[in-house]
């Protein structure tokens, strides 16, 4: 059985289409990532899968259950961590966890082994009110609360947004451990670098999926040679490259501009020579391997 099956699902709000004809499947034990910028439709998609919103068209099944018809059964079996920090601020760490265990008809002790690794980090603060925790701590507590009833599938909506890089890494380690315990995880994130941590990803943009595959396959489909270019004046460099007749794509990436050319088999020197004729100073240019973000930009350009 597929854990999640989404077929041609559409969701509109008034006149805007938040999710536009999306289809994908998630296998047992996968970490499946929905990657895309704000407004890509990730949250809406999650809310449809967690039965909080009804699709306008198409259908979706979670654990073989229809999200509209069998919503009550789905609600007993899934774990959901919404994008906003949704714990009770005036309840302590312990009380939050106990509350969520109780409403799912279980106890903290019963599934303690599942959350042990994460909860150990929270244990010293168990009497502290959830509202007084740091961002990383809140996120860990929210994960514990979503896990405490041993869900078959976990929906995490932007769990790492607004969390520091160290906590983000810790968080992904935890997800991998959960995966080893057989829990299927759907996670959404606006951070492209987190895509490589998923087994498979769906790249999303404006309600549509651009590509659904393993991160490696997506990168492999990137056929053009990619160059990272730097000069003393990045803005001028950007303007110049935009005007270049052979330009395919150019976009900022950290300190560099990532550039692809329309021609095949082009060398670094050819571009460098062209730029030097235009008096750009301090030029550095190197051939780089594409990452998910490059693929995302390229796919966006195609559409």
């Amino acid at each position, binding site marked *: *059985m597929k854990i999640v099956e989404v077929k041609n699902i559409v969701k509109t709000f008034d006149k805007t289409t938040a999710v536009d004809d999306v289809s994908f499947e998630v296998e047992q034990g996968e970490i499946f990532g929905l990657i895309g910028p704000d407004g890509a439709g990730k949250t809406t998609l999650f*809310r449809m899968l*967690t*039965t*909080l*919103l*009804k699709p306008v068209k198409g259908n979706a099944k979670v*654990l*073989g*259950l229809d999200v509209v018809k*069998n*919503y009550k*059964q789905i*609600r*007993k*079996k*899934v774990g*959901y*961590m*919404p*994008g*906003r*920090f*949704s*714990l*009770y*601020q*005036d*309840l302590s760490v312990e*009380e939050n966890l*106990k*509350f*969520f265990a*109780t*409403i*799912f*008809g279980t106890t903290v002790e019963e599934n303690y082994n599942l959350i042990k690794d994460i909860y150990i980090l929270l244990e010293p603060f168990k009497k502290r009110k959830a509202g007084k925790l740091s961002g990383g701590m809140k996120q860990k507590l929210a994960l514990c*609360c*979503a896990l405490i009833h041993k869900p078959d599938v976990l929906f995490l909506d932007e769990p790492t947004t607004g969390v520091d890089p160290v906590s983000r890494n810790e968080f992904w380690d935890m997800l991998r451990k959960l995966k080893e315990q057989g829990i299927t995880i759907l996670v959404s994130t606006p951070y492209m670098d987190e895509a490589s941590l998923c087994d498979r990803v769906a790249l999303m943009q404006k309600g549509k999926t651009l590509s659904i595959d393993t991160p490696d396959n997506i990168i492999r489909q990137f056929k053009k040679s990619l160059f990272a270019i730097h000069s003393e004046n990045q803005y001028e460099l950007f303007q110049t490259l935009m005007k270049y007749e052979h330009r395919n794509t150019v976009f900022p990436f950290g300190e560099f501009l990532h550039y692809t050319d329309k021609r095949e088999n082009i060398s670094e020197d050819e571009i460098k020579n062209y730029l030097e004729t235009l008096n750009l100073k301090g030029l550095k240019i190197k051939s780089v391997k594409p990452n998910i973000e490059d693929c995302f930009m390229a796919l966006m350009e195609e559409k």
Partner: protein
Amino acid sequence: MPHEIKEISEISDFRGINDMKRFIGFLIKEFYHIFRDFRTLLILFGMPVAQILLFGFAITNEIKDVKIAILDESKDNVTREISDKLLSSGYFLLYDNLQSVKDIEPEFRKGIIKEVIIFEPNFSDNLFKTGSANIQLIADASEPNLANMIVAYTTSIITNYRSEITKSEDVLPSINTEIKMRFNPNLKSVFMFVPGLMAVILLLVSALMTSISITKEKEMGTMEVLLVSPLKPFQIIIGKVIPYLLLAFVNAFVILGLAQFIFGVPIVGNTILLVLESALFVIVALSLGILISTISNNQQTAMMISLGGLMLPTIILSGYIFPIENMPIVLQIISNAVPARWFIAIVKGIMLKGSSFGYIMKETFVLIGMAVFFIFLSIIKFKTRLE
């Protein structure tokens, strides 16, 4: 495969027990919220006490020690007797004896005296020879209610005096009006405020607090998590309602207790009937609170609707402060839709007049009708999803 999952859950789920545990867990959480929020506690327990003490002690409709001036142009036995009667009544204090009409205006300007009493020259001669004499009462009407009251008190004292002398001398047959104030013989204002205060506080605790507590979950995003859980929507609602139902009762007893032991407002009628009717009103208010929470997405909207849409009509249109009979006909019609109007009539009936159920049946059925209507409406409006 879907069938298998369904069957397993059916077997392993001891429905009743699990449901009860869930629900109790939810209730405990609600009490944590209430007892950990200082502002909530203040509204719940500080306000009823503060309001009843305020209305009981500070805001009175009675007059006491009002400063007056007398311009006596006759200075005979009768005018002296009338003045003594006025000043010994406890309502008035003599501030000044005026000598001429010219002094009146400046005296009022000072703002100390509220009334001037003028006896015409040859007062007693006129009275006994022609049978009529004139007294002029001039009151400071910058506070109209107070002026009315002062004039009424003065007139009644003078009328009393007249009836005394006409009786003793057997002159003309005169008509005596005897006035009795039933159910509140001393016209104590606290008698009138207690029923209204009951309505306001119960409404505030039940409707405002419930709607805020539900919309808070929406605002914080915890409602999303609650919906994606085995908790049923009606369990969420009932769980939200029960703590406030209990607290509303505590409040009702506090108000009745204070009213009785500090201000001596009696409960003439059946206490159990009063409690049951209060419960009915609380249910109406709670269902209104739920309704408000289903149509508002954040605490602020809920508060605005509760205060503007519920509190204001309750204070103004329920007969709590302003008598409904004196309102323009349009407002009288609108006041029928205010639950507090009916509840106040019930409380006044039971507490002050000792009415039995037969006399307040109409009001009770109106409230039952409202409760059914609002509960029905909020069930229709409650969303099991986010839209």
